[in-house]
């Protein structure tokens, strides 16, 4: 079967620096993949390549077997560090509606189907109660739910999220992860979520894609989160330590 997302030998050089170095990654429908790595490891670049916003110097990027740029309608995206103007006259429902048809020409026409799609997306993201609020005046966790509704309202098959858990406290992060896990399970959406801390994702990840210095190792957590694998990836010895139900990666 054709994988939903396929990166093969993807290499990206930005300003003379190799940001992605022959990266391979496959993602199937409904599969929940955590893209883990420290700042500067290449996570955002990988997501931009998958979105078709950045063309790699070498390698292939396919979505549903076709070049990524042509399959934008299959992808939902939650960008990093969204900052909304608190005074902007835009309710949550209006914002989510833009995710449905913001790329079309003309005025948004109110219709029952459109309202139903927006309500359904908000419901799935656990944000139905926020529909009438000003989008710029939400808390961090509320805003992240709304951004997820905005990303899934067009019913994408693949959902890409750039550090959606950053700046959230642990309960909010857990709530967002469980929303995403149910989107993956119930709608069969492939989820690729970047994070610098894998722990909140451990209970739900089907696959982990671990990045260091532009290189990537992918597999089940048991296969990848091991001292030998990560030491080879980093190019120097690191140790994987299990403390109760948490995993820590430390320089050895």
């Amino acid at each position: 079967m054709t994988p939903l997302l396929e990166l093969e030998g993807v290499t990206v050089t930005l300003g003379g620096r190799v940001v992605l170095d022959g990266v391979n990654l496959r993602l199937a429908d409904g599969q929940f993949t955590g893209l883990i790595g420290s700042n500067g490891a290449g996570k955002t670049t990988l997501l931009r390549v998958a979105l078709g916003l950045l063309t790699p110097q070498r390698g292939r990027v396919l979505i549903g077997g076709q070049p990524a740029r042509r399959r934008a309608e299959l992808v939902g995206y939650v960008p990093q560090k969204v900052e909304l103007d608190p005074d902007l006259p835009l309710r949550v429902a209006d914002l989510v509606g833009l995710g449905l048809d913001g790329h079309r020409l003309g005025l948004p026409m109110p219709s029952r189907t459109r309202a139903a799609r927006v309500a359904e997306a908000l419901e799935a993201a656990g944000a139905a109660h926020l529909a009438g609020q000003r989008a710029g005046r939400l808390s961090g966790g509320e805003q992240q739910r709304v951004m997820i509704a905005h990303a899934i309202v067009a019913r994408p098959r693949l959902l890409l999220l750039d550090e959606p858990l950053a700046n959230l406290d642990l309960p909010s992060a857990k709530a967002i992860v469980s929303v995403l896990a149910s989107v993956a399970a119930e709608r069969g959406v492939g989820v690729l979520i970047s994070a610098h801390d894998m722990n909140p994702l451990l209970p739900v990840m089907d696959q982990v894609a671990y990045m260091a210095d532009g290189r990537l190792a992918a597999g089940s957590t048991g296969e990848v989160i091991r001292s030998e694998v990560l030491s080879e990836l980093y190019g120097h010895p690191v140790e994987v330590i299990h403390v109760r139900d948490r995993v820590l990666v430390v320089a050895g």
Partner: protein
Amino acid sequence: MSPLVTALVVGAVVAAVSGPVGVFMVARGQSFAGHALADAGTTGGAAGYLAGVNVLYGFVAFNLVAAAAMEALGGRRAIARDVATGVVLGASLALTALFLHIETSTATTGATVTVLFGSLFSLAPGTVPVVAALGAVSLALSALLYRPLLLSAVHPDLARARGVHPGLVGAGYLAALSLAVSLSAVTIGAILSTALLVGPAAAALHLVRRPAAAMALASLAALACTLGGVGLAYASYHWPPAGRGWPVSFFVVASVLLVYGASLAARRR
């Protein structure tokens, strides 16, 4: 002093002040505020004209009021500041329209145009000490606020953590900007003051990394543009149409745009 010497001295002072004040202005994203202050100053100029006081005092006074209004309405977020600047600018332009309407003599449009486009060659030699003094105050204020300004440009909370109030620092900087804008707008015109504050500073920020170096480079570039512009304008009295002369502001702005274009090309390489 001959008109040419006066023009060169005033131009040099304005250029020297424009470097440091302009680098902070571009780095803080306050180019609109700087330009709005120059335009708003014309209101004070028109009021001074009506009241029969020196236009420069009208300029400075109205500029400081406008800067205070922008700071009070604006707050911290970029869009709110943009709107506040726009509303203050709109209100002051309205007053300009009123003052010019009251002063119905035909000379006023000429006054507006002089204020907009400036006329380095018609400066009275007596302006030189006033310009030098205001320029010195503006530079001293920038030097005093140098480190807090950089700190709050990096992040306002960093400044707050060190006991620096970003609002106060911002207000102090706007005062320095108001003075710089007043003195340059009243001597060389509002467009030239914007051009000299924005262009060389933005170009310098493309080329060097250290803020102090950017300020020095911006001052040098502004000086070169001003001197070149004055020289070309002086020479243009012999160009067609004979004896009319091309405007200084045209040559200065053209040099500023060339410098900026060159900095873009240099950055790309």
